[in-house]
C-alpha cells in the first residue's frame, strides 16, 4: 500500500496524455492550475511521447516496443531533472510502472532495449537497472491532489456543499499494480476524499462501484453494444443513487461516460441527470478557476451549464 506521506510534491514530470490533449485539454490546464496554487514543483516536457497504452492494449504493439518507448520517456524525465512521473491518465500510469519493473528485473529485455538505443546512437537513453524505482518514481495526479487535501480545504474559494458526487476510480490505476494503491484496492477512496475536502458529499459506496467504464480499448470499437451496456450499467446505478456529478481520473473513462452518455440516452431511451468532470477540474473550480478558460468545459459532451448555474459558479 502506498503511504500518503510518501507522495512527493517536488520534481514531478506532469506526463502529457494523448487523450487529454485531444479530447479534454482542460484536464491538463486544470491540473496545472491546481498544482500552481498548491505549490507543487512540476514541469511539462514536449519531448515526452505517448506511453503506447492505446496501441499496447489494442494488441498492436509488442511488449518490447512498449518497454523501449517507456525507457525513452524515463530518460526524458531524468534528463530534465524531474524524475517523478505523474500521469493524468491511468493507462500511462500502469504502462510506465510495469515497464519500469520489467526493465529493473528482466536483464534480457533491458539489454535488448539498451542495445537498440546504442545501435541508433541514442546513448543518453540507455537505462541502467534501478535508474527508476517502480514504487517511488510513478504517481497519478490524483495522488498528488490527495496528499494536498489539507491545503485544498484551506485554499478553497468555492464550496460544493450538498453536491452529491460519485467517484469513478480508473481500473488501470488500482487494479493493475494493486499493491501500490493509496488505500484498499478493493475500495479506493482517493477521489471521494478530495471531493469531500471541496465540500461535496461523496457517495462512498454504490452498486457496481468497481465496474470498468466499458471502454475496454478495442471493445468500444469492436463490441460496441457490450461496451455501452457496461457503461449504462454504472450510469443506471448512479442514477438510482441520486448522483448529480461523476468525478473521473482518467481521460479514457471520461470519454466513455461524457461522450457516450448522450448516445446511451438516445439508443436506450433513458435519461441521466449527471454531469462529468475530472477531479482536477473539480478541485480547480473549488479553488476559483474559470470553468472555460481553465477547466475547458466547452469540450465536454454533456453540458455542464446546468450544474454550474445550480452551484452558482456562473
Amino acid at each position, binding site marked *: 500500500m502506498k503511504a500518503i506521506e510518501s507522495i512527493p510534491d517536488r520534481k514531478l514530470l506532469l506526463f502529457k496524455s494523448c487523450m487529454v490533449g485531444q479530447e479534454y485539454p482542460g484536464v491538463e490546464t486544470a491540473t496545472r492550475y491546481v498544482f500552481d496554487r498548491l505549490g507543487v514543483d512540476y514541469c511539462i516536457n514536449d519531448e515526452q511521447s505517448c506511453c503506447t497504452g492505446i496501441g499496447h492494449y489494442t494488441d498492436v504493439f509488442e511488449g518490447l516496443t512498449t518497454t523501449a518507448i517507456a525507457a525513452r520517456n524515463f530518460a526524458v524525465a531524468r534528463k530534465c531533472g524531474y524524475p517523478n512521473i505523474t500521469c493524468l491518465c491511468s493507462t500511462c500510469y500502469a504502462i510506465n510502472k510495469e515497464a519500469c519493473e520489467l526493465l529493473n528485473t528482466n536483464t534480457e529485455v533491458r539489454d535488448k532495449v539498451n542495445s537498440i538505443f546504442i545501435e541508433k546512437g541514442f546513448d543518453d537513453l540507455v537505462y541502467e537497472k534501478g535508474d527508476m524505482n517502480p514504487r517511488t518514481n510513478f504517481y497519478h495526479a490524483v495522488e498528488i491532489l490527495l496528499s494536498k487535501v489539507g491545503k485544498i480545504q484551506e485554499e478553497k474559494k468555492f464550496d460544493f456543499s450538498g453536491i452529491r458526487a460519485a467517484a469513478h476510480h480508473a481500473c488501470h490505476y488500482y487494479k493493475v499494480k494493486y499493491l501500490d494503491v493509496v488505500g*484498499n484496492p*478493493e475500495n479506493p477512496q482517493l477521489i471521494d476524499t478530495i471531493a469531500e475536502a471541496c465540500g461535496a458529499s461523496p457517495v462512498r459506496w454504490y452498486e457496481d462501484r468497481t465496474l470498468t467504464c466499458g471502454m475496454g480499448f478495442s471493445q468500444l470499437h469492436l463490441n460496441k453494444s457490450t461496451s455501452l451496456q457496461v457503461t449504462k450499467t454504472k450510469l443506471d446505478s448512479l442514477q*438510482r443513487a441520486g448522483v448529480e456529478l461523476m468525478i473521473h481520473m482518467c481521460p479514457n473513462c471520461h470519454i466513455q461516460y461524457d461522450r457516450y452518455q448522450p448516445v446511451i440516452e438516445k439508443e436506450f431511451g433513458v435519461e441521466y441527470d449527471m454531469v462529468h468532470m475530472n477531479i482536477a477540474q473539480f478541485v480547480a473550480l473549488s479553488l476559483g478557476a474559470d470553468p472555460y478558460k481553465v477547466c475547458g468545459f466547452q469540450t465536454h459532451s454533456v453540458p455542464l451549464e446546468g450544474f454550474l448555474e445550480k452551484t452558482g459558479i456562473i
Partner: protein
Amino acid sequence: MTDGTTDGLDKAAVFICHCSGNISEHVDIDAVKKTLKAEGISVFDYEYLCSSQGQSLIKNKILEGNLDRVVIGSCTPSKHGTLFKKCVQETGLNRGGLEIANLREQCAWVHPDRTGATEKALSLLRAKLKRLENIEPLEEIKVDIAQQALVIGGGIAGITAALNLADNGISTFLVEKDSSIGGQMAKIGKIFSPDKLAEECAMCSLSPLMNEVAAHPKISLLTWTEIESLSGSAGNFMVRLKKKPRYVKDSCTACGRCSRVCPVPVEDEFNCGYMDKKAISLRFSQSVPKIYCIDPDYCLQLNGEACGKCATACKTGAIDFSQKEEIIELNVGAVIVATGFEEYDVSQKPQYGYGIFENVLTQMELARIMGINGPTKGELLRISDFSKLSNAPKSATCTSGCESSSDHSSDNSSGAETPKRIVMIQCVGSRDEKEGGNRYCSRYCCMAALKHASLIKKKYPETEITICYIDVRAFGFYENYYRAVQETGVNFVRGRPAEVIEKPDKSLVVRVEDTLNQKIRELPADLVVLSAAMVPSPGTRKIASVLNLSQDESGFIKERHSKLKPVDSSLDGIFVCGTAQSPKDVTDAIAQAGLAAVRARAFITDSPKSLDNEIAAINQLLCTRCGECLKCPFNALSLNESGRVVLDPLICTGCGYCTELCKDGAVQVAGFTKSQLKAEIEGVLEEGDMLGFVNSGIASLTCDNIGNSVLTYPSNVKLIKVPTTLVVGRDLVLHAFKHGASSVLFVEDPPDSPRAEVIYPLTTSHFKKLKEELGDSGSRIYFKKTYVPNTKGLAGTFTSLAREGEMIK
C-alpha cells in the same frame, strides 16, 4: 579446571567394540590393539560393549586400574553415548573423562578398504586420547524448577490446560484479561461435534468447566488481569501481572440490582454490539467469577459525576469505588499460552459489504445471534429489522439458557422479519494471497457454516440457505455431518463470490459464478453471512511480543516442531495451545490443551533439572567485560549487578557464537574448548586429509546416515564433532592446515528449527568472514548445509574434496 599434570597414559584405557562384526569385519582390531599397546596404552576389546557384560568390563577395568580417562571405540555416540556416560559415571568418573570414537558409522561402514579403515580407526582413537591428555572435567549443572504453572487465556484451551495441570497436582494460575473466563466459545450458541449429527449446546459443555476452575483448590483464577512482563528463564519465570479494579468486591451475589438501576448504556462487545449492556454488568449471565464489573470509561461516578446508584441498590455493600489497580508478581516454572484468536476483519474485503450493508454479518456474529442468551434470545432476525433499543437488557440474570429455547421464539414484538434467504460466503480472508488476506485455510469455517445452516433449517425449515464454497473441508468424521446437512436441503454453489450488492429494501444480492454449471448467478438474500478467517487475537500478538516467542508469518505462535514438539514454543518452559498456535476448532483446541498441560507438568516435575547440553563457560580472569558477548542471539548472557558477565544455563544452547565474539578467549563451550579441539585435530590428521567440522545436530546425524545407507567415501576424510561450526575460529583452521589438512569442510544444520533459524545465518556469515580472513588459504575451506536424507550429496562432497587432497599430496 585443567589439572594439566601428566600425559596420563597410565591412567587411560581404550575399549574397542566388535559390534558383532560390524566393526571387526572392516577394522583389524588386533592390529589396532598391537599398535596402541606398543605405545604403552591399555587396550581392551569385547563383542558387545553395550551389553551388560561389556559395561561391567569397562567398569571393572576403571576401578582396577584406577583409571581417570576412557576412550570407547564403538558405534556413534548418538546411539549409546548416554549409556556409556552413565556407565563410567557409576564408577565415580567425571563424564569429561569419557570420549567415544565413532568406529562404526564414520569408519567401518563407510570405508570398504580394510587397511584404510584400520588406519582411520587408529587415528580416531589417537585423537580422542590426545583430547584427554589435558583432562577437563565437566560440571554437572542442576536447576531447581518453581513448582507452579501459569496459564494465559481463559478460553476453552486455557481452561482445559489449567484443569489438567491442577488435576495432576500442579498449582496453577489462570489469567484472563476479560472479567469472565469462557473466551470465544462462550459466545457461540451451539457447537458442532464430529461424532454426532446434532449440535451441542456450547454453554452446557463450557459452564461446568468454568465452575470447576473457580472451585478447584489448585487453581488461582485471576480475571480482569493482564500480563505486564516476563523475566527470568525456563523453570524460574518471574511474571508481573496487572489486576485492574472491578470496583465490585467479591461479596457480590450477582443479584443484578446494580445493573437495573445503572443509568448508562454501553455497547456490549460480548453481543457483537447488537445490544447494549450497562456500565456495571456481568460479561454474560454464566460468567465466572460471577462478580459484576464496572466499566471505568463509562461509569458516571468514576468520571467525576455524582451517581452511585449501584452502590445504593447493592444489598451487600459490594460496590467499592476506591479499588485500585494491583500489581502481582508470580514465580512460575512453566507457562502455557492459550490466548486464542479473533475473527478476521472482513471490512478489508469491501466487495462483500460488511460494515456498509446492515444485513451482512460474520459466522461468529450469527452464532451470537443464534445464542439463546443473545441479543434476540436466539431468534433469527434480519439485522436491519431489530433495533438495539427494544433489546435493552431487562434482567441481566437470565440464567442458563438451553432448556428454555422455545419460550422466546414468539417474543418478537418489533415486527422484525425472519430472513427467508440466507447466503453464506466461505473463505473470506482465508486461502487468499492478496494483501490483507491469509494464505492458510482456517479449518473451522466449513463446519461452522454447515452447523449454522443446519440449526436454521431445523428451526425455520422454510429458509432457503445457499453456501458458496471453493472446497468443503469436512475432514474426518465431519463428513457425516456434511452429508446430514446436505439432506436438509441446503444449497451449495461452488464458486468464490465477486461481490455483494444491496437493494433499496436492504435485501442483498450475491454475484457468483457457479463453476459447476459455468453460470454467473445473482443470488438474492435477506442475510449474507461471511465465514471469516481465524487470525491471532490481539492478546496472542501482545503475549508473543511480551514473552519474545517466535511467530509464524501470520502472527500465530510457532511451535518448535509441527510433529515432534507441537506444543513447545520457541522458548524452553513456555508451551502453546489452542487457536493461539494455529486455526482450529473446539475439539482440536481441547486435545492440544491437554498435551500442553502434560508437557508443562513434565517440565515442572523434572526438578532439580540437570542439563544435557554442553554450554558456554566464562573465564572471569580473562574477561575484560567488553560486553561483546552480550550480543548472544538467545540473550543467555548478561551483566550482573557487579558488572560480571553471567550465563543463564537454562537459556544457553551452547552454539558457541560468544566464542567467536570474545576477542580475549574468555568464553569457551565446555567440552569443546580450543585446546581440546586442537588436540583432537593433531591426533586425527594425516598429511592430505580432508577435515570436516560437523554440527552435532542434524549434520552429525546425516554423517552417520551415510554409514546406514551403505554409501562410502575415502578414509582420509576425518570428521570432528562441534556444537556448531561457530566455535571453529581462524586459529583452529590454521592449526588443521598446519597438521596436514588439505581442505576443511564446515557441515551445518539447515535452518529448520527455531534454534537453527537463528544460528544458521550466523554460521554462514562466520564462514564468509573466515574465508576472507584466511586470504589464499580461504580457497581451501568449504561450507555445506545438510538434511538428514541428503546422504548421497554429502558423501559426494566428502569424496570429491578427499580426492582433491590426494592429488595435492
